[in-house]
């Protein structure tokens, strides 16, 4: 299985060789979609973990035990349904096809498995319905 998460490093943990440990000690296959890491400041990476369920759970526990935040994308890429007017203009801007209007209801949905947290949708939404903590 695969799971995409946003990992947030507090300032003093940025130097830890986290990705290496996840690969070597937990046998996870890793894909980094986006990263902002500056020494002495907090860092964020959007990461896709692939492995079996147990490997992923153990890996995430290991990261959390280091005092590092792990959020599912749902917690950091937020669509405010009350604000969204379902225009759909964001759907053609999204580089990963994560935003779609339902074929029957024409309402917007986000597929978090596809989202790479690029931020384009949040930038262009005319009613500010998408907020991204990154």
């Amino acid at each position: 299985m695969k799971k995409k998460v946003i990992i947030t490093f507090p300032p003093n943990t940025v130097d830890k060789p986290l990705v290496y440990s996840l690969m070597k000690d937990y046998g996870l296959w890793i894909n980094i979609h986006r990263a902002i890491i500056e020494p002495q400041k907090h860092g964020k990476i959007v990461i896709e973990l692939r492995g079996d369920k147990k490997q992923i759970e153990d890996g995430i526990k290991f990261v959390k035990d280091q005092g590092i935040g792990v959020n599912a994308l749902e917690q950091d890429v937020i669509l405010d349904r009350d604000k969204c007017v379902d225009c759909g203009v964001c759907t053609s801007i999204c580089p990963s096809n994560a935003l779609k209007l339902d074929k029957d209801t024409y309402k917007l949905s986000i597929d978090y498995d596809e989202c790479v947290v690029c931020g384009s949708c949040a930038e262009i939404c005319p009613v500010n319905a998408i907020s991204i903590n990154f």
Partner: protein
Amino acid sequence: MKLIRTYDEINKRIENGEAVVVTAEEIIGMVEEDGQERTANYVDVVTTGTFSPMCSSGVFINFGHAEPPIRMQKITMNDVPAHGGLAAVDTYLGATNVAKEDPKYGGAHVIEDLLRGKEVNVTATSVGTDCYPRKEINTWVRLDDLNNAIMYNPRNCYQNYNVAVNTSQTSIKTYMGTLLPNLGSAHFSTSGQLSPLLNDPELATIGIGTRIMLCGAQGYVSWNGTQHHPSVQMVNGHKMYSGGTISVIGDLKQMSHNYLRAAYLPGYGVSIFIGIGIPIPIMSTDVLKGVCVKDEELYTKVVDYSSHKVNKPVLGYVNYKDLRDGKIKVDGRDIPSSSISSYAKAREICNELKVRIGRGEFNLQAPIEQLPKETMFNNLKV
């Protein structure tokens, strides 16, 4: 044109709760099943709707007089300038004016805040006159405090609109949204088969005085819209209508924020989503022919917005079915398409209007006059 029913007959049936009212989407299937003649014989009204950014919108406001009174000349509402060129405490707040301190907040946001019951800061200055001695005011108002808040939008409901694309090498920011470079995205702005003026292509029933649902309130078509310039051309064997516009009026106090939303388009500025529903009475089979139009029969032109000219290059013609399905072909290339107008909201508006007519809360007003057919559409000399 054979007349099937009159406005009076329809309104009688609405009053008696007998009127058959369907949406512009439902009518398509009915006509496919029963044919035009039969459907026209039992459907009284078809509801149409749109929910799109419409920049040419705003509200006339009367604040009431302060003690001592002021003749307001320079006016702001939440830091957004409002027009000071009317009578002492009258103003027009345009949707696209922006706050001095925040370019992402504008008249549209003030209008939405008022509608949501929020307090809005009002400041005004004046030279002071014998009859209006006060020179300054700084106070707070809510929508309920205002004597009048009359929405008057000089141009809404464009009959048909361009698809915007970008052939340049960099993203461009437009009132149609941010267009990706190298034909990376195509944006359109209409509810197509639900759109009021596309369902009445000859403007036979939508005219001056037509009663409409404006942002959830009862409103009226007040005149033709600015730049109203109806035209028709043949594309792929279909008539492509475009250019019709209406100006509309209604009481902001009766409106709902569900059908009005302030918008900010990055790099362009502030606009306002306006929701409009218009009922079309099925007076004849000709009128029915208009309302049963489908997205695949409705065409529009693809325009290159990277050109800085007024008359931008047209790259081709596409229909609304392809646009809505998310992909169009231009010059043999597939381009992802999306709409800045909400189909879901347009549908909600059609349904809401259908329910109101069904309950007898909304009846039909025949136009007092048709919209003009011959109009001028000049460019400004420089």
